[in-house]
């Protein structure tokens, strides 16, 4: 299979190791990996702020970048959720791009979903000894319906103990521009989430979306309770 990496803007700029590990995993499983370098961002930041016209331009750029791809995989439930949940309405009056967007929807996946449901290869032979807790990010679960896939991946990492995160369903307060536009509410939300992470007793916080993880761990660090946050891909990367 020829797999195109959609690194996402956050992944590209802040967490490039996500892409490196993804590429290595897919290659190891015998697939060809490519990276269309015209890609930039799914447009969620402007979309959620109401700037639909700006979002369309960004979305068209992304759609074009992956036009020739066979499958597209991203290290984020949120960005894939943006494509699946919002692109159809974004292009409802543009038949050309609606068609292209629909094609992209049919061939794009979040990483854990792709590995577990499409490739059906949850066991990568990874070993990593740690007690982790998993934060189910809102868009991965609610927009993409991803619930068991990441847990399946974690189960197959030898040495990992998964401890439950209390009130896991609560949003961490990131919400893209929400954290900046409504800082006091966002802070109250991340404060509670951080407390739940501490209460879980885990050494590492893991999840599918770097935005949420960056938010929670950024709060924990600033307040002197550093529980490192690692994307599931990073856990796999360390363990392989």
């Amino acid at each position, binding site marked *: 299979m020829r797999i195109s990496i959609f690194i996402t803007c956050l992944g590209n700029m802040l967490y490039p190791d996500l892409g490196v590990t993804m590429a290595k995993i897919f290659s190891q499983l015998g697939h060809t990996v490519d990276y269309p370098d015209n890609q930039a961002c799914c447009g969620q930041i402007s979309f959620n702020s109401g700037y639909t016209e700006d979002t369309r331009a*960004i979305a068209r750029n992304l759609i074009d970048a992956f036009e020739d791809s066979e499958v597209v995989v991203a290290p984020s439930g949120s960005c894939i959720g943006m494509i699946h949940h919002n692109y159809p309405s974004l292009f409802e009056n543009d038949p050309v791009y609606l068609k292209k967007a629909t094609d992209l929807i049919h061939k794009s996946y979040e990483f854990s979903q792709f590995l577990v449901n499409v490739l059906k290869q949850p066991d990568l032979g990874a070993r990593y000894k740690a007690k982790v807790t998993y934060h189910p990010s*809102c868009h991965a679960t609610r927009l993409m319906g991803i619930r068991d896939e990441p847990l399946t991946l974690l189960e197959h990492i030898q040495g990992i103990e998964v401890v439950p995160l209390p009130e896991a369903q*609560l949003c961490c307060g990131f*919400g893209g521009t929400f954290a900046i536009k409504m800082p006091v509410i966002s802070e109250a939300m991340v404060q509670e989430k951080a407390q739940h992470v501490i209460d879980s007793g885990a050494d590492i916080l893991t999840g599918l979306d770097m935005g949420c993880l960056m938010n929670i761990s950024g709060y924990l*660090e600033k307040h002197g309770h550093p529980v490192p946050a690692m994307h599931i891909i990073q856990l796999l990367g360390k363990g392989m």
Partner: protein
Amino acid sequence: MSENKPYDMQEALDKALKDDFLRMATRRATDKLRHQKLDAANQLGDWEEWREAGEKIRNQVILNLDYYLKQLIENVEKNGGHVHLAKTPQDAVNAVQEIFQKHNAKTLIKSKSMISEEIHLNPVLEKDGVEVIETDLGEYIVQIAHEPPSHIIVPAMHKNRDQIAKLFEPIAGHSLTSDTPTLTKFARGKMRKKFLNGEIGISGCNFAVADTGTIAMVTNEGNGRMVSTLPKVQITLMGMERIVPSFKELGVMLNLLARSATGQRLSAYTTLYTPPRREGDVDGPEEWHLVILDHNRSEILGDPDFRASLRCIRCGSCFNVCPVYRQIGGHAYGSVYAGPIGIVITPLLEQDYEKWGHLPYFSSICGACAEACPVRIPLHDLIVKHRDRKVLTGQTSAIEHQAFRAYRYYFTHPKVLRHFVHWGARMQFVFMRRGRIVMGPPPLANWLKSRYLTPLPRQTFDDLWPMLERRLKKIELQRGEQK
């Protein structure tokens, strides 16, 4: 009363966030309701099927509202009731005032009605010299406290037993212990006398059955039943979309409502009554008025983007899952309807973004509300839609517009973006301490107030890819040779 002071968002948020009790109480109450709801929903088997049925019924009503309204009005009038169509809240208030004047009535007993909050009825009647008695315990508590309800189902969610005892004491004239039996007994005793003396009763309406003219009202205290049977003159307030076609659909909707609101299979009292009293009836009002409020619901109906919000059955389940409501409670929104549904409908009912434009930002777009909604209103999508409309109608700041124009430029020009990121990676050291970004210019400063930020690495994935690609190609080749 707080209502007279203009709303200040920052002040309201600060007040709410400093109120540890409010936040703890809200968390505790919403958690309890949420868990109860999940249990009650699971008991039904396929909850999703029920939600779909609910959505369908509500859509059927809304898309044919003219038909069902006409049918309802005809049946109510046939039964001998008086219908008042109120285009605006003022019209509704006027209709009620006229009824009071006609009977020269000075006492009102009320059971819970969000419409009466929406039209701000109590202060007007009180000014007219009417004694207004809220008979729902929660409403009674917030009435004494001179506060608006903080939750549409649990109006006094933000008060604990000690605070309630303190509120009751001046009325009782002696000290009260703060145990629940004492407090409810006090309120009950107080209420009983009022029930018997109330000249006019006002109650809300959960659903009006179009083909019979029946009103369905759910309560857990039985007060609704007292209000709807004792006074000779009665007024029912309803939003014009709160209709079900027949009893067949009512069964589905009551199931969805009770389970979603409080996690009950049925509310303790589900009152179905078809006033006014007819010959042979043992109770019920001799004169009955149904006030049907539009208040821009027609506008919403004509607006395909937001029409789905009219499906709402006011169960409050979106409040109970909302992580924002959980932190700030209901009053900080500044609107009669708080929570996710309040964010969506307030700017529409008031047709005013200037005053209510802050509401659409009281959401992290986490989607918990839409997931919980028993009639599948895509609440978080509608919240984004409001933001969209604010942008389109020029009600967001010029700076924000510029910021998103820049975002658009950079994120459609990946090569330029790359240079920009490299520049950032070189310059960021001025904001860093111990390997973390700890300070920065606005709007980043808002983030950094409570969190650190990971610094930009020297190389983006764009930079790493060419070498990675070569390595992967080599491995692939070797693998091919081995085969």
